[in-house]
């Protein structure tokens, strides 16, 4: 089966499964058709919450309110405006998206518990509004809703409801699946795994979280709109806080990082009160116990249990994991890079002859402590410039100011003539600036391939949605991106591990992965933060060779902080030494390191031979 067909099938499978369920249900009794209908309706919510709660890691207690908004909006569209049901469904969808936006804009300023509370606020205010705005919404008694009419046919019977719900659900889950399987979903997971690393390559937390809220709220509202007419009435109490919290259980029990988890969670949990009638009273308590047990012992949810069981059935695991070692041949490396790496993006602001990095008078104080005092450094294009100094010298603070993660009190940083103070972190990769991190910031659950592709920096929300669509049907850019990523992985020696999750790699290989991610966009400047911290001497030597080759063949400028002075001596053509926030030496590495005052800075006044 061709690769492209595999991809299409994978994306279409959840929707096809829903259609299959619909088909099966239609052959069963009336009662089961009803059960299937509500189950299928809940799968929309499950998948939507996998996106928001599972991928984006946003705890939301507003799902009930979103369902209510969809239900009321579509009911009112039919009742008050006389619109057709299909149109009313779209109205519900639109209001859901709008509500998601209204909630998200204030909410995404916060994380964790504050975020959860803001969603709770939204939930309660919406319900209070629905209860109080009697003329519009019928108040606490709600609205009476007629049976939907689609293309002139009244949807009243159980089978009609089932078919309508099945088709609609399959239709709405498809775009969700496209997004979740594609770069959009991967970027969400990257963001949740390591926000700092994600931001450095253009993934904006605010924009992505807003997008996740808008999309999931729209889907949940749609689910509310399509399920409401079944019960002939929409009233505020059906959509209260408790319902929101129990919907939260869908992705958690089903499996938070998997679309199938959303399908299973929503589909199964929603109908348990129906199917397990005698236990109905205790079910909510049972759900609570299940959720707590799940987060404690089975964080992967039902999906993980199922896949573990399936793996046990297969005799032994089929994966012969490739050895986690890397063969690096210098000549091959150079050839591979030159041959396969795509040309750099044209830079329109290339100020001829400007230094790659120009730091002028940078200062930063924390209260009484002056961490950095008026530091100026100039790094010429194509140079390998190192920064060293004893503990507490201010190197890390300086580096954070250069990379944009900390604001400066005074001074400026510019690159190729561009003042970086006004450039947010997310936009730097677009300017040709990439970086690595002291505490490796790879995305552990994503493959090396997916980690590297993020390095291309094509990560604004809309562009990523477009790329997700292209990934689904195999557009032109997919192949081009793939080639660039494989070339970068090849250059660092990780080609064989391309499909391995980054979290399973050794530290040395994770550092290589960071370098692959940094070079794939053909940057002009790479900022490296302790690139050999924690790796052995051999591996440090390999990394050194790699960086030298990258510098020579691709002309990339590098600015490096390191504690390993031997490494800096063997790599850099210029070295700056800091101590107590100031520069105490700068120049040719060997001279700098043998200077008396540099020795004193490290050892105190007694010299070590």
């Amino acid at each position, binding site marked *: 089966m061709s690769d492209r067909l595999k991809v299409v099938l994978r994306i279409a499978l959840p929707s096809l499964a829903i259609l299959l369920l619909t088909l099966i249900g239609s052959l069963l009794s009336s009662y089961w058709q009803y059960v299937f209908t509500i189950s299928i309706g809940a799968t929309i919510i499950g998948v939507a919450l996998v996106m928001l709660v599972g991928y984006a890691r946003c705890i939301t207690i507003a799902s009930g309110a979103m369902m209510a908004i969809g239900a009321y909006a579509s009911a009112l569209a039919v009742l008050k405006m006389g619109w057709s049901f299909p149109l009313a469904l779209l109205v519900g969808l639109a209001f859901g998206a709008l509500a998601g936006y209204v909630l998200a804009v204030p909410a995404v300023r916060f994380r964790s518990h504050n975020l959860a509370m803001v969603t709770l606020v939204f939930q309660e205010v919406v319900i209070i509004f629905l209860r109080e705005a009697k003329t519009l919404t019928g108040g606490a008694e709600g609205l009476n809703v007629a049976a939907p009419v689609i293309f002139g046919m009244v949807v009243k019977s159980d089978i009609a409801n089932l078919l309508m719900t099945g088709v609609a659900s399959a239709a709405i889950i498809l775009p969700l699946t496209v997004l979740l399987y594609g770069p959009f979903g991967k970027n969400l997971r990257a963001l949740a795994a390591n926000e700092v690393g994600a931001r450095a390559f253009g993934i904006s937390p605010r924009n992505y979280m807003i997008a996740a809220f808008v999309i999931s709220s729209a889907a949940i509202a749609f689910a509310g709109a399509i399920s409401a007419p079944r019960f002939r009435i929409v009233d505020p109490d059906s959509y209260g806080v408790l319902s929101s919290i129990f919907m939260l259980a869908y992705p958690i029990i089903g499996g938070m990082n998997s679309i199938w988890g959303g399908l299973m969670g929503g589909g199964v949990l929603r109908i348990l009160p129906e199917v397990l009638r005698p236990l109905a009273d205790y079910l909510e308590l049972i759900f609570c116990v299940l959720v707590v047990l799940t987060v404690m012992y089975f964080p992967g949810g039902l999906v993980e249990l199922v896949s573990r069981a399936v793996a046990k059935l297969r005799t032994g695991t089929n994966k012969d994991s490739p050895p986690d070692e890397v063969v690096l041949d210098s000549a091959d490396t150079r050839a591979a890079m030159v041959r396969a790496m795509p040309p750099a993006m044209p830079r329109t602001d290339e100020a001829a002859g400007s230094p790659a990095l120009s730091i002028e008078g940078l200062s930063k104080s924390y209260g009484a402590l002056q961490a950095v005092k008026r530091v100026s450094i100039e790094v010429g294009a194509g140079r390998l410039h190192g920064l060293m100094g*004893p503990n507490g010298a201010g190197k890390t603070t300086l580096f954070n100011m250069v990379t944009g993660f900390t604001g400066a009190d005074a001074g400026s940083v510019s690159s190729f003539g561009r003042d970086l103070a006004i450039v947010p972190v997310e936009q730097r990769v677009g300017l040709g600036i990439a970086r690595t991190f002291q505490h490796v910031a790879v995305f552990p659950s994503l493959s090396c391939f997916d980690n590297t592709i993020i390095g291309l920096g094509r990560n604004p929300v809309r562009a990523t949605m477009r790329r997700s669509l292209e990934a689904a049907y195999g557009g032109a850019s997919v192949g081009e991106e793939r080639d660039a990523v494989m070339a970068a992985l090849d250059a660092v020696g990780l080609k064989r591990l391309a499909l391995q999750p980054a979290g399973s790699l050794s*530290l040395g290989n994770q550092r290589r992965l960071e370098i692959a991610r940094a070079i794939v966009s053909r940057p002009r400047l790479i900022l490296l933060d302790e690139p050999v*911290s*924690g790796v*052995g001497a051999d591996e440090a030597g390999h990394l050194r060779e790699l960086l030298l080759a990258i510098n020579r063949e691709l002309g990339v400028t590098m600015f490096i902080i390191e504690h*390993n002075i031997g490494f800096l001596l063997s790599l850099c053509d210029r070295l700056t030494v800091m101590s107590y926030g100031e520069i105490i030496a700068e120049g040719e590495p060997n001279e700098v390191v043998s200077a008396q005052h540099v020795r004193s800075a490290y050892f105190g006044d*007694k*010299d070590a*031979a």
Partner: protein
Amino acid sequence: MSILSVTGLTVAHGPIVAVRDVTLEVAPGQCIALLGPNGAGKTASVEAIAGLLPKLSGKVVFDGQDISQLPASSVVKRGLALVPQWRELFPNFSVEETLLAATNAARGRSAIELDVIYDYLPRLKERRTQIAGSLSGGEQQMLAIGRALVTNPKLILLDEPSAGLAVGIVRSMIDTIVRIRETGVAIVLVEQNLEVATALAQTCVVLTAGRMAWTGSIEDAMKTDAIREAYFA
């Protein structure tokens, strides 16, 4: 009979193996220095000995008892105190309250009276009601040392006590530590500053990239290239 015996200590710091197979012995009342460049694993070693960091493997025997599996809160109660690299004080506690908090660790054994502590660290006495967060760097270092002393330790692990301090303060701190050493408390001193190390210790262990590179007397270490190589190799 050594008061501290560490064998085969291996410590991970996240994904990095920071310390590999380190062994050292400290006799009662002895002071040994742990030297090496940044990232060599000195801090990870002493924090693992103190129970703040989990160990991958290795055995730590203190005062005849195996403390390898104990958390820091239990270790300090046995008489092994740590003055950590970043001091880890309580910014809103007064000097006096900080010291009182540490008396918790001495329960069972006799706590050292606060007056005794103030005797060693007179600057602290002047500032006993001052909030720790408003003290100068040197005074904070004194407070961290005082906090360790309150627990009535038989051995103190000192992690870079001179870091970030001005030369004059470092000198007075050396005097204080000498006085402490003279009461019979053993000391393991992590330092990059060789002046401090030579003033206080006779023997040293040099670490590079998590492994032991050299052991012996400090005098010999200074004469050979051992230390310079460790830093600049």
